[in-house]
């Protein structure tokens, strides 16, 4: 075994801590991904022979622990218990990541199918493994692509079944949660604006476009194109910021949207 550099040794340690893999396996995965942790995780979890076999019997047992008395689903109580077992706050964003893995249809409930297949894909068949997976799930939020998927998933998951739009209060809660991770400086102004001026449910389009807005437009809106295809709510938000002096209007910004 050739000598590893200090940085590489750190990464190796991290990898093992998070995945619970053996030294050898960890080293292989890291090498295969050129010592990028993220890539190493992907390699590790996508290779069938490296995956820890998730015993389906164990999964059933786990499911039964949380399932509701009367209905064949995990409901609020079960989820609370799960969170307890995992030593995680029910409001913790990692629960969203978990729901995403499960492709859960609605918040606060998991169907049997969702629970089991979700856990399988994560290679979990025991509480211990479950707990070990938590840091990994958290780390997924730092990946651009995955964050986007999780963010967009959150819309469908958080809204009421059968509704097309997301209730404003729920949306605001979700945004605050998500952007605490992502660090968007305007999130509070956005929420204030919505409560003051909009007071209606949020459409899917607005939801997804907000992420793009947060990612591409900088803090003082210097690269915001008022003639672009941003949803009108975002245009209104920019006007709101300018009206209230939060952001100064740049000289050549079009203040009138009428042609």
């Amino acid at each position: 075994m050739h000598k590893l550099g200090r940085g590489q040794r750190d990464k190796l340690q991290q990898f093992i801590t998070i995945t619970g893999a053996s030294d050898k396996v960890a080293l292989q995965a890291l090498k295969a991904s050129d010592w990028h942790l993220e890539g190493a995780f992907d390699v590790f979890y996508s290779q069938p022979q490296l995956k820890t076999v998730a015993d389906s019997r164990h999964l059933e047992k786990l499911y039964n622990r949380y399932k509701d008395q009367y209905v064949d689903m995990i409901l609020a109580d079960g989820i609370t218990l799960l969170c307890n077992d995992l030593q995680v706050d029910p409001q913790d964003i990692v629960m969203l990541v978990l729901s995403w893995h499960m492709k859960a249809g609605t918040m606060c409930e998991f169907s049997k199918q969702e629970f089991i297949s979700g856990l399988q894909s994560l290679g979990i068949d025991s509480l211990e493994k479950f707990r070990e997976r938590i840091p990994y799930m958290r780390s997924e939020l730092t990946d651009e692509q995955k964050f986007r998927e999780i963010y967009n998933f959150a819309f469908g998951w958080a809204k009421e079944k059968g509704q097309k739009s997301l209730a404003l209060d729920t949306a605001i809660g979700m945004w605050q949660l998500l952007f605490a991770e992502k660090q968007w400086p305007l999130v509070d102004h956005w929420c204030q604006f919505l409560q003051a001026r909009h007071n209606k449910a949020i459409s899917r389009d607005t939801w997804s476009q907000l992420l793009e807005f947060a990612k591409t437009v900088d803090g003082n809106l210097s690269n915001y194109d008022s003639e672009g295809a941003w949803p009108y709510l975002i245009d209104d938000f920019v006007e709101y910021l300018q009206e209230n002096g939060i952001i100064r209007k740049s000289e050549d910004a079009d203040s009138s949207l009428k042609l």
Partner: protein
Amino acid sequence: MVIKEPIQWEQGWGLMQEAITKLKNILEGLTDEKSFTSEEYMNQYTTIYDMCTQKLPCEFNKELYDKYKEIFDEYLNSSVWPSLRDKHHEFLLRELLRRWNSHKVMTRWLSRFFRYLECYYIERRTLPSLNTVALSCFRDLTFDKVKAMATDAIISLIHKEREGEQIDPSLLKNVVHIYVEIGVYEQDFEVAMIADASTYYARKATNWIEVDSFADYMLKAEESLKRERYRVREAGYLHSSTENKLVETVQHELLVTHATRLLENDNSGCGVLLRDDKVEDLSRIYRLYHEIPKGLELVANTFKKHVTSEGARLIQQVEEASNSQTINSSSGVQEHSIVSKFIELHDRFMAYVKGCFMNNNIFHKALKEAFEVFCNKNVAGIPSVELVAAFCDNMLKKGGGSEKLSDEAIDETQEKVVYLLVYNTDKDLFAEFYRKKLARRLLSDRSANEDHEKSFLCKLKRQFGGHYTSKMEGMMTDLVIAKDCQRSYEQYLHINQHVNPGIDLSVTVLTTGTWPSYKSCSLNLPSEMVKCVEAFNEYYTSKAKHKKLSWAFSMGACNIHGKFQKKTIELIVSTYQAATLLLFNNADKLSFLEIKTQLGLDYEDLVRVLHSLSCVKYKILCKEPNTKTISQNDIFEFNSGFTDRVRRIKVPLPPIDERKKVVKDVDKDRKYAIDAAIVRIMKSRKTLGHQQLVLECIEMMSCMFKPDVKVIKKRIENLIGQDYLERDPNDANAYRYLA
């Protein structure tokens, strides 16, 4: 045979020297002889010829060529230059002209003598020709030394002439011609002359602009240009190539530099000339500015501003007049009179466009843009299209004054109204207002003349398309059918006496959708009317089994007899009013709430009805308390003491102000229209950028209205939500059509 002896240099040159001296004397005027004889000429020519063709060492080509130049040099230095040196101004010019003419004579003779050199020596050695040598000598030794002063002198002469003094035109012409002949016209003369003209006219402009009115200024400008052109063309003392530059310079100084100040002068500018109808002055302005690139645009701009401000002024006048009227004044200024004022304004300014502005497109455009500005403004809070509709209503209804006008006059007015409509952006809103008013005219039989109605629809159709007028035409057709239907109903009743309710009922059957929607009524009809309605219902459903009738009592009218103490008076009222009054057949006094309960009308309608019967001109009902407004606690009683000198009175029920509803309906229709446009555009393009989509959408809607960009955006998002479109995953600013 005599062999000719070659001529030696001294000998040959001696002969030439004699000739040259003679020539100089001729030029100086020192001899009576005016020229050389043919024999003398032959001798000189031959001498030269011999000296050129002789064999060496007597071949003197080079020497002769050099000598030729020497002659000029010597003469110019010793005689010509001294005579010019101390002269100035006009004297200089005259002497210069004289010396130049002499020089030309000298050149002519000498080059004839030395002609043979041209044939071989000069050509073979590609040397400058004899004429060229002569010219360069004059130029270098004489002309160049005096040209600056000469140019100044010439320019002074021109200046004198401009100021009105007499000068010698031929002197000027000929001296300037020297420059041309020498080939230095442009750089040694023209440049300076143009610069001088520029300064001159700049100064003039500054003077005139302080003192003269625009009209007078224009006259002076026109005169100046004429005279400068004359200087070039007729008088000919400037070369023809100068004309354009000179004219341009003068135009620039007089017309361009101060253009804005002149055109927009408050006391005498374009606006004032238009106001005072100074046709000739305006035509002059057009003529003068027509020649300047972009000149007409400047004038047209001022024209546009003037028209726009006139339009704004009319609006202001009408608003002031309407503000100063009291609310209940019956002879109030009707705001729609502004429409005829606009038409007048348009006629007036169009006359200018076609007349003094020569029907030029730039002015047509300016007029159009001006009208588009103020034709779309609200007047006293009323949308302009509503006023146009009101104007039309007035023109087409009975008692609107149109009965006094001839068919041609009405036709002309209608044409002009349609023309005015073209300037309006909210054409769909006009259609809706017009339709509502048309409906009211038709249903209460207030239309003055069916042909006029039809001809107006025809004009609208021609301008805006069949789709625009289809509903209105449908309404007219409906009436015809309804009349037939009524006739056959009456026949039916005649035949079937047992179903005849005993009261005459005439029904107008309308097609839903063609007519404006009338809210369905909750009115409880008096029993007499119920019978009529039922009879008709039965008749109609037996005839048209698939059709469903819904009654719009809000539009109906009724003739009832009021048996007052003094006399019976026939009252012409609306159905609502009639139903209300008939309640008093069964009760002496009724409270507001009792009436409301019994009739089933909604609050606002009832207030209107009761107000019309008890608070205005004809008090058919007495109201306790006797105030001017209706309140929930009022008590009503039949006013048996009521009377009037006539036997028949109409008790009008003023209609509710429909403006808000119309605007709301049109907004809704616009949303659907935008949706449809977006879908149609995306379906054919599949993928399209946001800006492009917005532009095409606006384009598509432009013939009917101007959509708000924000509204378009909202509709796009709406369609995304309904899965008609999606955002293009590869391009943040584009959309894709979802089949």
